[in-house]
């Protein structure tokens, strides 16, 4: 049973990986070991496909609401979308005081997109992998935000934007002055540089790992509970536990999506801050 359970968990945690295997050449990895051996230059096809697919869902749904948006009496979809937009707009305008048109749409995109990715966590863990294996696809991990590559990909994009806006607002000199003459006087610049660089790098890493960690842990619990299935009593208990965890997880996925969006806005607001009061 232990071997079986281990295999089950490993299977659920392995991405559908495409890449160049040192021995087998280009192709999909058919075992977790081979996937790991493909190294950095492989691609997690399932993560990218689900994440892009959900992004497209977001774009289509919100675009159709935007196209039909009316200042008159809003319809059902527009109402739902407006609640989210209003919520994001309020949040952003209370955090971000500078002029930048792209911050609020970015926060909306992050919030809804990450929420949709997290939402995949609520799909019972075996449904889609089973369906995929019936269709001949060996591995299928449907929650992109349980893939650290996805979350870190997003958070390093945010990191790039932090640096971009820091330099855009303060100039290259200003940006390095902040790195070197802060928090101690300028003659301690090596210490300052070390501290500020760590601070700077901690932002994207914590941002990406927080989302990944929360969702990965949640997914893990679902998988572990799924191990209970077998026999009437255990299956029933497992079902109840899954349901209970899913209810709790609804909170987690929404909160994590919100946290990611809000932290992005906060970091970008800091990047726009020219005064050095912190």
């Amino acid at each position: 049973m232990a071997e079986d359970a281990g295999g089950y968990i490993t299977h659920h945690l392995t991405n559908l990986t495409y890449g160049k295997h040192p021995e087998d050449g280009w192709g999909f990895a058919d075992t977790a070991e081979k996937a790991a051996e493909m190294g950095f230059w492989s691609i997690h096809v399932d993560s990218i496909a689900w994440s892009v697919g959900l992004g497209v869902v977001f774009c289509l749904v919100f675009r159709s609401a935007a196209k039909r948006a009316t200042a008159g009496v809003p319809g059902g979809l527009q109402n739902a979308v407006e609640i989210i937009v209003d919520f994001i707009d309020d949040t952003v305008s209370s955090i971000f005081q500078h002029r930048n048109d792209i911050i609020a749409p970015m926060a909306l995109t992050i919030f809804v997109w990450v929420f949709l990715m997290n939402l995949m966590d609520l799909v019972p863990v075996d449904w889609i992998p089973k369906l995929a294996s019936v269709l001949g696809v060996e591995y299928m991990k449907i929650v992109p935000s349980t893939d650290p590559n996805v979350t870190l990909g997003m958070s390093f994009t945010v990191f790039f934007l932090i640096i971009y806006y820091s330099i855009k607002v303060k100039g290259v000199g200003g940006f390095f002055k902040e790195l070197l003459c802060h928090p101690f006087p300028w003659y301690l610049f090596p210490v300052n540089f070390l501290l500020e660089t760590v601070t700077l790098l901690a932002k994207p890493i914590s941002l990406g790992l927080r989302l990944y960690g929360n969702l990965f842990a949640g997914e893990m619990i679902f998988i572990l509970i799924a191990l209970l299935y077998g026999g009437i009593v255990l299956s029933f208990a497992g079902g109840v536990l899954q349901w209970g965890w899913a209810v709790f997880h609804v909170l987690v996925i929404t909160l994590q999506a919100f946290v990611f969006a809000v932290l992005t806005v906060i970091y970008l607001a800091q990047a726009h801050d020219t005064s050095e009061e912190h």
Partner: protein
Amino acid sequence: MSWVTMIGQSIAFFIFVWFCWKFIWPFLIGAMRERQQTIADGLEAASKAQRDLEHAEARAEEILNEARAEARGIVDDARGQAAQMVDNARADAESERERILKAAQADVAQEVNRAKESLRGEVADLAVLGAERILEASIDRERHDALLDRVAAEL
């Protein structure tokens, strides 16, 4: 770790944010702002109408009060004039009565005087006549004195 997945996710991130920025956000937020403006305008118009109504009501009340006061004034004036007219008429009638009375009295006095004059003349004639008659008859001094006295007293 998989660089390609990270980079792919990063590119997707940029594309979705750009799409949202260009094609989603402005339309939704625009519609919402416009609706907010419409509602704010509506509320403003409603409160303005309310204020106007209050003004109009106050103005109407004022006009009504003025009209009431004016009407009262007119009635008072009319009443005063009427009283004045009645008084004047009474005074006129009074003086007319005086005048007519005086004229009548004067007439009467005149008539009386005229009558007296004519009577006096007639009496004188009668006296003369009587005297002639008496003189013609015999003169009984004493009797005639009495007679004459009586005549004189009758005058």
